[in-house]
């Protein structure tokens, strides 16, 4: 079932690539050339790659790999690591955003741009308060 899906995906990708090369390369619809090449390449590579992977990977090894991924995903230490890393990244991003807003003001950027960038800082802080309240009730 999955193999059929991968074959279909690769075929759609190849079709889009052919369409781009043979039909959209010249003429009135040249605007569609780029999107067709992009979408076609993505579909073809994804479909063909998954197909080759499913053919070459032994069933037992695939099952063991799936189990290992499930364990790694549900592992409590990994969950804490992800949460901590996400929290730290969010905190750093807040400082980066503040610095960005300061730079915008310093370089006399248009008011709309400064307000939009400041809104991001505000949204970050609002989300922080919302999630604190949410987890305060849940936990």
């Amino acid at each position, binding site marked *: 079932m999955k193999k059929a899906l991968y074959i279909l995906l690769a075929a759609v990708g190849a079709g889009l690539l052919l369409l781009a090369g043979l039909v959209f390369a010249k003429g009135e619809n040249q605007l569609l050339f780029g999107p067709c090449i992009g979408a076609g390449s993505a579909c073809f590579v994804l479909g063909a790659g998954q197909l080759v992977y499913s053919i070459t990977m032994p069933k037992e090894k695939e099952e063991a790999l799936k189990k290992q991924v499930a*364990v*790694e995903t*549900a*592992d*409590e*230490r*990994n969950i804490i690591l992800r949460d901590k890393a996400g929290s730290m990244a969010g905190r750093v991003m807040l400082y980066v955003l503040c610095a960005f807003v300061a730079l915008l003001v310093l370089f006399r950027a248009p008011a709309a741009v400064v307000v939009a960038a400041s809104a991001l800082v505000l949204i970050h802080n609002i989300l922080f308060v919302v999630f604190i309240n949410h987890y305060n009730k849940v936990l």
Partner: protein
Amino acid sequence: MKNRIEELRKQRGIRQEELAAALMVSRQTIGSLENGRYNPSITLAFKLARYFGKPIEDVFIYEEEGQP
């Protein structure tokens, strides 16, 4: 919090990988527990204690701050 996981594991002659597989956690988690870098959740602490067939107090040694 100190623990006796490494000692109990070695007594049974099992590898970190085997203990990790039995408890459905990663090998790195077992390593961190043994090194004392990570304190487990109460669920994992009970799972470990049950795995070794011991009360939780025999596996984990809780010391209040300031006490030896």
